[in-house]
């Protein structure tokens, strides 16, 4: 019996069961235990599937509707190491988030566990499916569960506004995906990715093909928070409850990028011109990474800071993916894993602050958390890991991306990636230094008014030391990220995943004819250089020191620096206005430009 459907159906069934158990009077711990057990079971299924997929990609036809005369009438899960690995990552992050929520909420309200499990099911289905419309169904399920989780704390206005922005932008994105599916269906007559790829291959790229790709890409890149579609993310991630933020920043955004990569390689890779596409995606990726990095430095609301760092890192992942190369894709996959685990740890650290002080405001908490030593140290370690400190998973991932970029002749990319890593990690370390160690004083560029989010009465009063069960997921996530960086097996899996990912012919033959082609040969083990990574980490420390210590940003020099930066900073802030009308305007302009570029270029 194949395990392929179980990650999704276990989570769905348990979600329904937990909804039915909601009315029990002493339900809190029962729901906690059952949802933890579910996440654990899903993680075990994913582990098994990953293990099995290494020997050969698994194709699972629901309802036994195998292709009839080469035409797929049913829905298939196509489980290769990349999709199984991402599913496993999402299950692990859910496990950490649920462990953390054991003590996080003062009173768990209606349907929290149900929605978390539905969210888990959607992440699983989205990663594992090999069918375009099925992908859209899970995209929508992911959205609906996420909007509700974002607006969880209805007593404040921030979460409701964030959830509304999130819902509007992602629904518009969903419409784009649906339009793209309609175009592709009209062109190919099928919804299976492999079929669509086979039907398009060899044909010239017309306006309809490029428009279909751009519509699908725009929809998924909105989920992936790529400029200029990223505006919803800081609004939503900063106000969602911490466990939900862990999942949003750790895996949901990255799955958007994964979907773009998947549809490109399986469906469009023989039709569209890779050079032009590479330039376009690289441009968007680099712009996203820079804007996200700068905006992260300008925040004082810690969760908002982390949210902008997610935007920046999502841009870096897009840049890595955009190289359209096997090695670069391997690096990107490793980076997604390493970054997701570290970012989850950072959000959990922030959640500990909420637990104690009901605030995540850098200025307000300044020096007030000296007693949280373990959390402080772990948070700083996570901040260093965010910059790509060896031997964390972020180091191998980014190292491979950088080396491949240099080999391919994109010399400008490695320094840019280092700069953005240093900016985001520097902002995190600055905040950590101020909050946990009382270093420096209020920073000169931060915004004046913090947004209110889940803090407030959500978690009740702080009581004594931090519960162990909150620190356990924080530590485990960091250890897991270390594992991603250090274990050679993880690299081998990522290499195999990338090799399988870009092998369109083998994917088609397996899905449509059921004939397995030989697996790609393993590439030699990559050991990215350590020096560059240490330099990046040092640069991050310098950025943090610039903000915290005496130097050009203090005293007399400060005024001149401020005057110099005032214009661009104000412009950036004004663009990130928080008005949904502005966001839709940027969205439609971005989509229009991408459509125009694609139709003229491709």
């Amino acid at each position, binding site marked *: 019996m194949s395990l392929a459907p179980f990650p999704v159906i276990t989570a769905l*069934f348990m979600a329904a069961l937990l909804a039915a158990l909601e009315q029990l009077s002493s339900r809190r711990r029962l729901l906690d235990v059952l949802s933890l057990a579910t996440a654990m079971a899903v993680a075990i299924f994913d582990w098994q599937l990953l293990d099995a997929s290494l020997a050969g990609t698994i194709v699972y036809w629901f309802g*036994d509707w195998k292709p009839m005369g080469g035409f797929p009438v049913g829905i298939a899960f196509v489980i290769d190491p990349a999709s199984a690995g991402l599913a496993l990552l999402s299950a692990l992050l859910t496990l950490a988030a649920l462990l953390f929520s054991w003590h996080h909420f003062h009173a768990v309200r209606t349907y929290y566990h149900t929605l978390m499990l539905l969210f888990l099911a959607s992440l699983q289905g989205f990663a594992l499916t090999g069918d375009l419309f099925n992908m859209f169904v899970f995209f929508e399920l992911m959205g609906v569960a996420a909007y509700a989780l974002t607006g969880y704390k209805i007593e404040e206005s921030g979460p409701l506004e964030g959830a509304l922005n999130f819902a509007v932008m992602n629904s518009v994105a969903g419409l784009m995906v649906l*339009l793209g599916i309609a175009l592709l269906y009209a062109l190919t007559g099928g919804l299976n990715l492999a079929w669509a790829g086979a039907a398009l291959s060899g044909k010239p790229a017309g306006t309809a093909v490029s*428009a279909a790709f751009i519509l699908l890409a725009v929809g998924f890149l909105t989920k992936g928070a790529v400029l200029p579609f990223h505006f919803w993310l800081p609004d939503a991630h900063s106000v969602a409850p911490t466990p939900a933020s862990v999942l949003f920043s750790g895996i949901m955004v990255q799955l958007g990028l994964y979907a773009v990569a998947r549809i490109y390689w399986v469906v469009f890779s023989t039709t569209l011109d890779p050079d032009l596409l590479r330039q376009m995606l690289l441009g968007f990726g680099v712009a996203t990474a820079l804007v996200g990095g700068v905006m992260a430095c300008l925040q004082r609301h810690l969760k908002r800071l982390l949210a902008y760092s997610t935007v920046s890192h999502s841009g870096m992942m897009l840049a890595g993916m955009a190289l359209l190369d096997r090695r670069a894709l391997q690096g990107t996959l490793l980076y997604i894993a390493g970054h997701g685990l570290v970012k989850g740890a950072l959000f959990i650290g922030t959640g500990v602050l909420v637990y104690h002080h009901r605030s995540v405001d850098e200025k307000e908490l300044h020096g007030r958390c000296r007693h949280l030593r373990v959390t402080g140290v772990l948070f700083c370690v996570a901040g260093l890991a965010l910059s790509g400190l060896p031997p964390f998973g972020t180091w191998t991932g980014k190292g491979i991306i950088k080396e491949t970029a240099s080999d391919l002749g994109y010399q400008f990319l490695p320094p840019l990636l280092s700069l953005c890593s240093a900016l985001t990690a520097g902002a995190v370390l600055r905040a950590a230094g101020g909050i946990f160690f009382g270093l420096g004083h209020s920073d000169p560029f931060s915004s004046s008014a913090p947004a209110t989010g889940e803090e407030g009465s959500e978690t009740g009063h702080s009581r004594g030391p931090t519960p162990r069960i909150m620190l356990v997921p924080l530590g485990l996530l960091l250890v897991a990220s270390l594992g991603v960086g250090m274990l050679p097996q993880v690299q081998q899996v990522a290499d195999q995943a990338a090799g399988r990912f870009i092998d369109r012919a083998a994917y088609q033959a397996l899905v449509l004819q059921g004939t397995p082609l030989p697996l790609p040969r393993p590439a030699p083990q990559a050991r990215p250089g350590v020096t560059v990574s240490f330099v990046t980490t040092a640069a991050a420390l310098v950025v943090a020191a610039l903000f915290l210590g005496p130097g050009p940003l203090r005293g007399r020099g400060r005024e001149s620096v401020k005057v110099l930066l005032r214009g661009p900073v104000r412009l950036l802030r004004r663009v990130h206005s928080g008005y949904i*009308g502005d966001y839709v305007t940027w969205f439609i302009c971005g989509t229009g430009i991408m459509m125009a570029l694609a139709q003229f270029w491709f």
Partner: protein
Amino acid sequence: MSSKLRHFPFVLGTLVFAGFLLRALCALPPFGEYRGAYGPAILSTMEPLRHAQQAVASITFDYRGFDTLGEEFILFAAVAGGLLLLRRQESEAAHDPVDQSGDRGGIEPAPAVLGLGVLMFPFTLLLGIYVVLHGHLTPGGGFQGGVLLATAFYYVYLSGEYHDLLGMSRGHIVSHLEAAGAAGYVIIGLLALPAGLHYLHNLLPLGDKGNLLSAGTLPLLNITVGTEVASAFLLLIAAFLRQVLVIRREKKP
């Protein structure tokens, strides 16, 4: 951006987008020249393989039944999220509903409305049940029939008997029915696994084409979806009613 400033780039962006989308749509195969393989593949196999006479139901519940599972759970998630957002806050208190217009004595529906409600309730209920049960034979099915079933209870509200609706919340039988409907679909799909078949394989006896008991699991799946949809809409209307009629914001102490 101010709203006036915003209009310019928005209109410009929309025009560019619409223009290029139109250009792409013009490159599609012309209207009426469908060349896809999906339609013929299903029309030629659904009768011999599944004894089904309704292609739409066959696609939604059999060929692509897994999509429908996801769609059912989208509704489930939307209702769970709706109830989460519409819950009573700590600063709010529940009050007995009062008539908003002061010149009436109590909440008495007009006799005509009451009569119509009493008349329509059983027929709508019956129509809903019919549409759910015949989903695999005639246009309709669980989603449409479920909405009709919920509509029948909206007549109860129109007739002024909304106390019955207000009670439908967490712990009420309706919320159990909703969860059972959602879980039921998952379980019906599981039936095939012990037989060594794939998830959602339609393995029940197929019956004769056109009979009420035919097409294997399709009627069962329609019933679970109908149950889920009907109770989901009831829970939602009850939550909205509570928000409007019962919950009042108290001043914070």
